[in-house]
């Protein structure tokens, strides 16, 4: 196999640090990972900044800052297995060093972690000693403050605790948060409305399963706050309380060799269920009884006796309004367990595997995940099925031609792309209106004509979302956020709030029409292999400054249409509340209700958000602003408006709400 694309990345990460044994011969290091063979240099670090008594030998490095920021030196890395290190950090000159930072045992085991401010142009000496052991170890130098922009992405440090696989809105403020978990804590970096994060660690009851294989999120019990499911050797539910400030656990007793997990309303009863890929047996799902308990089921959704189920994703491939299931599968020895499956939801509670009828979709390719998106913006979802190994065939790109798929890999760019990975996801990273693919250490940029070109990115796959609310997709890799610097392209984000349907609108189809045409997204809980990414639908709009309409087709069958939402904002659509609703009538008020409709002189405005300091505009169907009324005791005066349909838009510190009403 040709590994030309991979090797430079590996080389960059694999620098050996042949440090010298004295301050004067310290070797320069930068933001990277290094390996120190042994601590055998004659100059022991002095003074001791970490506390404790001096050692007899040392190992010296030198970091020269290129920006005013902060960095972290850590030996708390899995490959060190808790090895016993100690580190000192100095400024000054050799022979005249001044303590600047240092650490002995802050990391797990006896590892060392120290973070400190650095100033551009200043050199910092980093010295390890043999106080506890002279054995070799790996250490990492990384940014803990804003780092430089690489390939258009700046880095930002966030504290994490345990498994950091999840970016989703946890406090229901419309902003994505970065979540990490252990068996008894949930650490949430709540995104502040003005930027930055407020970090909180909540203690939870013990989860007997942790999300080592995957995590998924959604408001399982429809109480307004997202819940989590940890998928390991079985599943543990972590359900948020009514204020999102505490969690209780449901530890399911069944053994499952979990892989990808998803929250989805499998039986379309309006309540979120859980689906879990089983590595070695038929797939498993838990149906929601009453929003307080979930019942184990196995059978009917991928029953290969020995499993091979790795990457499930729930999307509507045939645009019939029923949520279908694609399973990326993998297994050695030519086993049929590696044959991917496309389960069509027949709408009557049964599913049929259609993959054998879809070109060569049902082949022996070794895949752990697939990236679904409407890559050609023709209104149906195409798919890139990524190879984790080329032993069963390469990457595959399929164009959706209505009810069939055509393999269009040759010439697409994926035929030449030789990065393998277990993670492939579809996102529009450059907001050009064409959805790209991330996986295999490279961003495959959609050229707009169903061909893709590799673009280097400084991150690997991780959970994604908009972590600085600028309308561009960001990526988390552990403690590091890669914040997309963006460009001049416009965007729209859509938050779907289910009423009759599940709370997150998971399974809803969102269609955006601009002068350039249409784009669609399905709301998905759990894509790629193990990470959970934002539930907010993200649309890059290219140069379009206008959105003609947004149509949300809910799992319930309700269709909401919002005309002319402004660009570069987040639009919250509440099921049945758009003013132009077809299908079943709405019954609940949340979070914006406008009535009566038609209105005569006064329109009542009820919102769950604080509307103080909001700007209210009324526009006609052509997008022309016809009034900017004030809000008086929850009402606005519409007496002077001509008869017709209007959009009311409320823009305030906590976001944007909009709804339609009719003036008689």
């Amino acid at each position, binding site marked *: 196999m040709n*590994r030309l694309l*991979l*090797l430079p*990345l*590996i080389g960059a*990460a*694999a620098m*050996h640090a042949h440090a010298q044994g004295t301050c004067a011969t310290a070797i320069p290091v930068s933001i990277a*990972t290094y*390996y120190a063979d042994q601590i055998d240099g004659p100059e022991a670090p002095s003074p001791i900044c970490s506390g404790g008594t001096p050692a007899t030998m040392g190992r010296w490095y030198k970091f020269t800052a290129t920006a005013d920021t902060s960095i972290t030196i850590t030996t708390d890395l*899995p*490959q*060190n*297995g808790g090895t016993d290190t100690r580190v000192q950090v100095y400024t000054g000159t050799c022979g005249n060093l001044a303590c600047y930072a240092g650490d002995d045992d802050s990391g797990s085991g006896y590892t060392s972690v120290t973070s400190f401010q650095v100033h551009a142009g200043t050199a910092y000496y980093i010295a390890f000693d043999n106080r506890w052991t002279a054995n*070799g*170890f*790996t250490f*990492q130098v990384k940014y803990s403050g804003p780092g430089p922009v690489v390939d258009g992405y700046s880095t930002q440090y966030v504290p994490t605790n345990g498994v950091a696989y999840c970016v989703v809105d946890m406090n229901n403020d419309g902003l994505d948060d970065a979540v990490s978990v252990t068996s008894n804590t949930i650490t949430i970096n709540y995104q502040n409305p003005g930027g930055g994060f407020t970090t909180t660690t909540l203690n939870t009851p013990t989860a007997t399963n942790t999300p*080592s*294989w995957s995590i998924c999120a959604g408001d399982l019990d429809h109480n307004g706050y997202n819940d989590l499911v940890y998928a*390991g*050797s079985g599943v543990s539910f972590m359900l948020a309380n009514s204020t999102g400030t505490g969690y209780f656990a449901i530890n399911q007793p*069944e*053994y499952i*060799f979990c892989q990808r997990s998803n929250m989805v309303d499998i039986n379309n009863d309006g309540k979120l269920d859980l689906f879990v890929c*089983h*590595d*070695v*047996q038929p797939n498993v799902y838990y149906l929601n009884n009453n929003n307080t308990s979930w019942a184990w089921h196995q059978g009917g959704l991928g029953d290969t006796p*020995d*499993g091979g189920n790795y990457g499930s994703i729930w999307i509507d491939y045939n645009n019939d309004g029923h949520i279908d299931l694609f399973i990326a599968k*993998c*297994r*050695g*020895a*030519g*086993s049929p367990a590696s044959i991917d499956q496309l389960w069509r939801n027949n709408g009557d509670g049964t599913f049929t595997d259609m993959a054998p009828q879809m070109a060569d979709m049902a082949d022996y390719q*070794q895949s752990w995940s697939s990236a679904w998106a409407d890559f050609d913006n023709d209104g149906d979802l195409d798919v890139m099925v990524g190879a*984790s*190994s080329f*032993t*069963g065939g390469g990457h595959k790109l399929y164009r959706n031609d209505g009810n069939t798929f055509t393999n269009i890999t040759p010439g697409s760019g994926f035929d030449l792309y030789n990065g*393998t*990975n*277990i993670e492939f996801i579809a996102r529009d990273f450059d907001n050009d209106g064409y959805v790209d693919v991330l996986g295999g*250490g490279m961003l495959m940029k959609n050229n707009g004509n169903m061909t893709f070109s590799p673009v280097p990115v400084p991150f*690997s796959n991780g959970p994604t979302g908009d972590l600085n609310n600028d309308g561009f997709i960001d990526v988390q890799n552990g403690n590091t956020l890669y914040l997309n610097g963006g460009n001049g392209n416009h965007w729209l984000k859509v938050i779907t709030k289910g009423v009759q349907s599940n709370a997150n609108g998971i399974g809803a189809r969102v269609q955006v029409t601009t002068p350039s045409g249409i784009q669609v997204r399905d709301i998905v809980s759990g894509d790629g292999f*193990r990470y959970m990414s934002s539930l907010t639908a993200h649309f890059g709009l290219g140069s379009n400054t206008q959105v003609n309409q947004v149509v949300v087709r809910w799992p319930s069958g309700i269709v909401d249409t919002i005309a002319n939402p402004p660009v570069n904002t987040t639009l919250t659509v509440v099921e049945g509340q758009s003013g132009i609703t077809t299908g079943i009538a709405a019954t609940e008020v949340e979070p914006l209700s406008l009535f009566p409709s038609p209105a005569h002189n006064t329109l009542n405005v009820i919102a769950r958000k604080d509307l103080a300091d909001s700007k209210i505009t009324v526009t006609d169907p052509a997008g022309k602003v016809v009034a900017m009324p004030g809000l008086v005791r929850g009402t606005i005066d519409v007496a002077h408006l001509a008869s017709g349909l209007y959009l009311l838009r409320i823009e305030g510190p906590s976001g944007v709400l909009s709804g339609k009403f009719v003036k008689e």
Partner: protein
Amino acid sequence: MAPRKFVLLTLGAMVAGIAACRKDQALSPDTLPGAGSGSPVVLNLDSVPYAKLSDYHFFEGSMADMRPVQGVLPYTVITPSFGDYASKFRFVWMPAGRQARYVADHKALDFPDGTVLMKSPYYPHVLPENRRRLLDTRLMIKKDGAWIFAEYVWNAEQTEAFLNMNGVNVPLTWADDAGQAHEEVFHIPSLGECQACHMDHDQRTPIGAKPQNLNTTANYAEGPMDQLAKWVAQGYLESGYPAHIETVAKWDDPAEPADRRVRAYLDMNCAHCHYDGGFCSYRPMRFAWHETTNPVNLGICVPPQDPFTPGVNYIVHAGNANRSMLYYRLSSTDEAVRMPLLERTVRHEEAIALVRDWINAMPDTCQ
């Protein structure tokens, strides 16, 4: 961490070998009588797996003592698989008049229908009683030319083991020979886990019962004896197998060179997935004993396909264990990272040290 000493107790258990005669049981027409005269084991292939382990009559006296009846032969493998430091009893039984046949040094014996292979993990000292505790007894039964699995989970009273194929977690604390307590959740595998390892292409297969693993001297009640010769004498193996068998090393024998010890360990613990007919054949490693004479099959200087942790840039980075995926994954207890993925929840410290030293002693030829 206190030093751990891995003690292979299977051989000791084998001394329990010879069983007293038992009164013959009435046989239904379709049951298979045991080998030799007077084996009380009866096996009706239409009825297995039975609901309880005692239904097979493999043992006499208190079943938890694992004293085999006549015809149930204890056996040992030179390098056993690691299972969270559990010790294991291993037994084989075959119907009268049927014999296993040699296929190849590195292939499981071709066993006759009605064969039962049995493995019972246990800890000698489980706290607070400081008593032996059997966790489960795993049966592979050859039926109609194919193997079926039967997993029996021992009750806490150690009076019976019940058929359960769903996977069971048993929290316990065991003490090692130095008296150090170890807390863990022992996982008894589900059917799916059994067949994840015990598969050769589309056929279920034993892993340990290969000539390369059995070709050693074992201790029996009547004294030490060549194990394969004993199987022939028992009527369990056709004679005429090759005089020379390419035999695995004993992984913890300090007299053996490190590479042979490592290769033996990888063969028993890893090769059932990482070979052409295995669960994970799509990754480049080939860890079977007869394949690891080729350094590429060991992953030496071969980049991992899924480089999921920075800087660990070869499967085996010659001279640098810290940058070797093999060492990284053998060292991990994260269930999505650790290798083997199954049968291990704790670190096997002695094996990790062996692999580390073996890698670090290599000249760095990868860069």
